[in-house]
């Protein structure tokens, strides 16, 4: 189920860290846009500011974090070598510039510039898929995390292709972008690329960081199969703009695999050997609560008319997006970023000196308090955005945006803090005994 780790193949810290450190700025940008949003944001989900906010969060915050995580985990956990570390550095620059440019041009609704920026993002995605894809293909282990990474990259290619096509049709009017087609693109990106990758990698990370040895996950492979089949069906059918009678079963079908994954995560956490949960365990539980809320809000969004309060179609969808993107995916990524990055720092900085002098352990490198505050801050911001959309309050929506800015900065501060020099907080526990065997 889990992969056999190969830590010696871990890429340099200087390659991975920029992805993690740049990512929270996407959340800050989205928060700034939301803090200045007006009532128009409740009218339609595809208005310029909403499109800019969505892509700042999804491509800026979450995808950038996920790219850093995959560049780290594909070699170190799946034991597959990257095609080129230099290419990964180039891709990082292209990605950050293109996403920033795209968010700005979408906010301004300058379609030709959106086309240029979208092409830059597509180039970034192709370079990432080639580099990480080679590492996944070279991986020796046949594990759930590896299968999830491969599937996630495949869905990323589809989501990127659809996104670029949508921008192309905005400019050249090849065909109309209906709500169904928009929904297909959004779900392929969010559930296919981010959801599948997150769920698959968590089958490695949850047991590892919570020391789970007595319990085996039940649904790892079924989750990936059901999720892929459900998403294929969902995207193909919803793109034809069916009525609520078709959309609701599709939405429920889409929810099956994430809920099975949630059952597995709870079982793993309950079966852990480690007594106290840390930020990773807490974030997974918070993510699960948001997942359940996202499923309920998604079912409501699929039904449509009864769930369009004030006849403003974007309100329910905004709440659904906040719960699914910021709540489920965002919470899980915050928790894991506070474990993956400290581990990497420890491995590169302190491992060679272990046993020769007192060195910090991973828990000395990150601040549990800062991590918890960041998780709580982002969760509060997401909850404020979701509730404000449901009740139709613009001041509350703007407050949610301001809280997102604070949450993003807290996440960034927590990550930057890890790079400050650290000291060992305690000596290793003494041995149980020294025995003499005759």
């Amino acid at each position, binding site marked *: 189920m889990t992969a*056999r780790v190969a830590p010696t193949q871990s890429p340099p810290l200087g390659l991975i860290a920029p992805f993690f450190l740049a990512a929270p700025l996407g959340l800050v940008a989205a928060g700034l846009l939301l803090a200045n949003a007006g009532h128009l944001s409740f009218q339609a989900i595809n208005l310029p500011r909403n499109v800019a906010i969505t892509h700042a969060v999804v491509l800026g915050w979450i995808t950038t974090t996920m790219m850093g995580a995959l560049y780290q985990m594909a070699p170190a956990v799946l034991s597959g070598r990257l095609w080129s570390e230099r290419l990964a550095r180039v891709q990082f620059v292209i990605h950050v510039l293109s996403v920033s440019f795209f968010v700005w041009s979408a906010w301004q609704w300058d379609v030709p510039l959106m086309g240029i920026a979208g092409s830059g993002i597509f180039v970034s995605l192709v370079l990432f898929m080639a580099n990480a894809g080679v590492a996944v293909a070279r991986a020796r282990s046949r594990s759930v995390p590896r299968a999830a990474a491969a599937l996630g990259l495949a869905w990323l290619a589809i989501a990127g292709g659809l996104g670029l096509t949508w921008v192309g049709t905005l400019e050249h009017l090849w065909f109309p972008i209906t709500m169904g087609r928009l929904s297909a693109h959004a779900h392929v990106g969010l559930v296919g690329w981010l959801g599948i990758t997150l769920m698959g990698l968590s089958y490695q990370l949850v047991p590892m960081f919570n*020391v789970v040895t007595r319990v085996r996950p039940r649904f790892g492979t079924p989750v990936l199969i059901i999720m892929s089949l459900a998403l294929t069906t969902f995207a193909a059918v919803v793109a034809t703009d069916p009525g609520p009678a078709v959309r609701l079963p599709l939405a429920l079908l889409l929810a099956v695999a994430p809920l099975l994954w949630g059952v597995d995560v709870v079982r793993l956490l309950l079966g852990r050997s480690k007594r106290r949960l840390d930020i990773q365990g807490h974030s997974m539980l918070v993510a699960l609560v948001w997942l359940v809320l996202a499923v309920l809000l998604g079912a409501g969004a699929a039904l449509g008319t009864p769930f369009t309060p004030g006849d403003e179609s974007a309100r329910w969808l905004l709440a659904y997006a906040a719960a699914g993107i910021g709540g489920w995916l965002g919470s899980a990524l915050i928790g894991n970023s506070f474990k993956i990055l400290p581990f990497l720092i420890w491995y590169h900085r302190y491992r060679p000196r272990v046993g020769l002098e007192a060195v910090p352990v991973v828990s000395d490198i990150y601040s549990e308090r800062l991590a918890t505050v960041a998780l709580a801050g982002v969760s509060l911001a997401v909850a404020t955005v979701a509730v404000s959309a449901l009740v139709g309050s613009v001041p509350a929506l703007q407050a949610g945006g301001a809280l997102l800015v604070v949450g993003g900065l807290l996440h960034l501060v927590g990550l930057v803090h890890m790079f400050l020099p650290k000291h060992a907080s305690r000596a290793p526990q003494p041995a149980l005994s020294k025995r003499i065997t005759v």
Partner: protein
Amino acid sequence: MTKVASAAATRWHGVFVATIELDNRGLQPPEPMVRILAALKDLADGDELFAHMDREPMLLYPELERRGFTWDFAEGADGYSLTVRRASE
């Protein structure tokens, strides 16, 4: 037959094998590695370190090799265990 004793006494007699025993179960990576490498400072030629483990310590192996130790990793009824000795042995 086993009894608790100091490593110094063990080396004086020379005919005994001192075993440093660690319980690394319930610890998240890389703490098992930190504890093992810290304990290896006290390991004399002929002595061995025996550690109860939750999983195979892949992170540790390159360091053991670099520092001149050999190891045996085994799965028993009581879980996993790792035995480390100096390579010169």
